[in-house]
């Protein structure tokens, strides 16, 4: 087969593999480098004459230091953030005025979907992939309008450029659709499955994950696991709660079928809380300034992107 026929696919499939010999050589050297970089352990334990002579004085200093450490520990405990309960997180989320939730199927990849919600503006904007294009859907509840705009590969850049207009279509939102949307933005989306442990299934648990188990986690957060069982599955949500605001900053979704199984990672959502003006600016960048946006069903943009149904109606 000529690789020129499908060049991009051929390059993606091009793979070079190391041999066992190479692996051994690199790993041996890497292990040695790791050991070399290890922090030095304290010197030998044998007591010298000098150590014996100065020992009592050292002991006094050590005792004083121990008292100071205990005092610091008590002070730290008093100042350290208190444990957060699930209802606190739920309430904080209900009070948040603006929210951006990015969903990741794979922690290494780009988000598969982003949703911006402004409770003050009563708008919801979705960004998702539609084939090679990016699709933005704006639901404007007060004006009962839905606007859609696509950005194809040639429009991709640092951010969408309104001057290189892709397709924008506007359609009327049905009354019941607007009501449903309004109801949905007053909730907590899907970040939390329950308002509190009272409403969770029997046997559910809300427990703090010890900091030392988290490694490099999200700074400024405390981490909690919410576990419950339903319909033959066990679920776990690992929730990274902001220590100051009680708002969730990251939620990881896991599940397993049997109790003896390891939990499997399903997806992750990252929550941010932008200001209202940031959401306004984003909408302006994507859909253009207010005066350029059609306030009624219609279509602006390049002719080749015109949706069939809009073209027929006009």
């Amino acid at each position, binding site marked *: *087969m*000529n*690789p*020129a026929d499908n*060049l*991009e696919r*051929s*390059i*993606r499939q*091009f*793979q*070079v*593999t*190391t*041999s066992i*010999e*190479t*692996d051994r*050589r*690199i*790993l041996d*050297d*890497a*292990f040695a*480098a*790791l*050991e*070399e*970089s*290890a*922090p030095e352990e304290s010197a030998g334990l044998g007591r010298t004459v000098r150590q014996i002579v100065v020992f009592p004085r050292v002991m006094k200093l050590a005792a004083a230091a121990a008292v100071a450490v205990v005092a610091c520990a008590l002070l730290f405990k008093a100042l350290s953030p208190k444990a957060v309960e699930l209802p606190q997180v739920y309430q904080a989320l209900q009070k948040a005025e603006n929210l951006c939730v990015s969903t990741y199927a794979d*922690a*290494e990849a*780009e988000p598969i979907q982003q949703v911006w919600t402004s409770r003050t503006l009563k708008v919801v904007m979705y960004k998702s992939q539609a084939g090679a294009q990016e699709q933005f859907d704006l639901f404007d509840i007060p004006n009962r309008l839905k606007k859609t705009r696509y950005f194809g590969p040639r429009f*991709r*850049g*640092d951010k969408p450029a309104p001057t290189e207009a892709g397709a924008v279509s506007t359609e009327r939102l049905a009354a019941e659709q607007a009501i449903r949307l309004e109801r949905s933005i007053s909730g907590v989306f899907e970040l939390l499955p329950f308002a509190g442990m009272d409403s969770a299934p029997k046997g559910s648990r809300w427990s703090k994950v010890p900091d030392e188990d988290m*490694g*490099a*986690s999200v700074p400024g957060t405390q981490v909690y696991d919410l576990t419950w069982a339903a319909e033959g599955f066990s679920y776990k949500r690992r929730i990274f709660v902001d220590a100051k605001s009680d708002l969730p900053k990251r939620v*990881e979704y896991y599940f397993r079928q049997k109790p003896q199984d390891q939990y499997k*990672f399903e997806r*992750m959502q990252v929550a941010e809380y932008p200001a209202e003006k940031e959401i306004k600016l984003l909408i302006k960048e994507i859909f253009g300034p207010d005066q350029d946006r059609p306030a009624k069903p219609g279509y602006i943009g390049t002719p080749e992107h015109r949706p069939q149904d809009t073209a027929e109606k006009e």
Partner: protein
Amino acid sequence: MLEDQRLLWRLKRGDKEALRTIYERYKDNMLTVATSLLHDTGSAEDVLHDVFVSFAMSVRKIELHSSLRKYLITSIINRVRDRFRTKKHHIVELDEVGPVSSNSESPERSAILSEESRLLAGALARLPLEQRETIVLHLKADMKFKQIAQMQGISISTVQGRYRYGLSKLRTILNGEMKK
């Protein structure tokens, strides 16, 4: 990325198994990127060796701001650029290009390349380094044009241009090879 962070955390505490897991996970991707850029599996393995040993040496100081894969691929790119800069590796000229370096044909050498891959690697080597790097970063390291632009310190449109021209030239080279 979460799993990577956990591995990195274990590695910072001297866990060799974590180092082995990271190596197993990313070695082929790293080697492929290096081979695509250098057109010499021997040199590419040297780069992989240097990057990984240096990673193990300095892991305690590393603060990860993106994925571990991107960090390691970026290290490979930087090391490849160093080789070109310090003339350890010369840019392959049109006339010099043959199959991937003869080093790879020795039984001791590690890389295993199919005939189609050899053809592709040979054609890639004929591209200017900038175009080659852009194509490899986009298709083999899954980096977006925006990320490549940031990494190379150029505009996105320049990156897109290099990618487009590079692919077009590659297609011409490969079609020419098939006619021979």
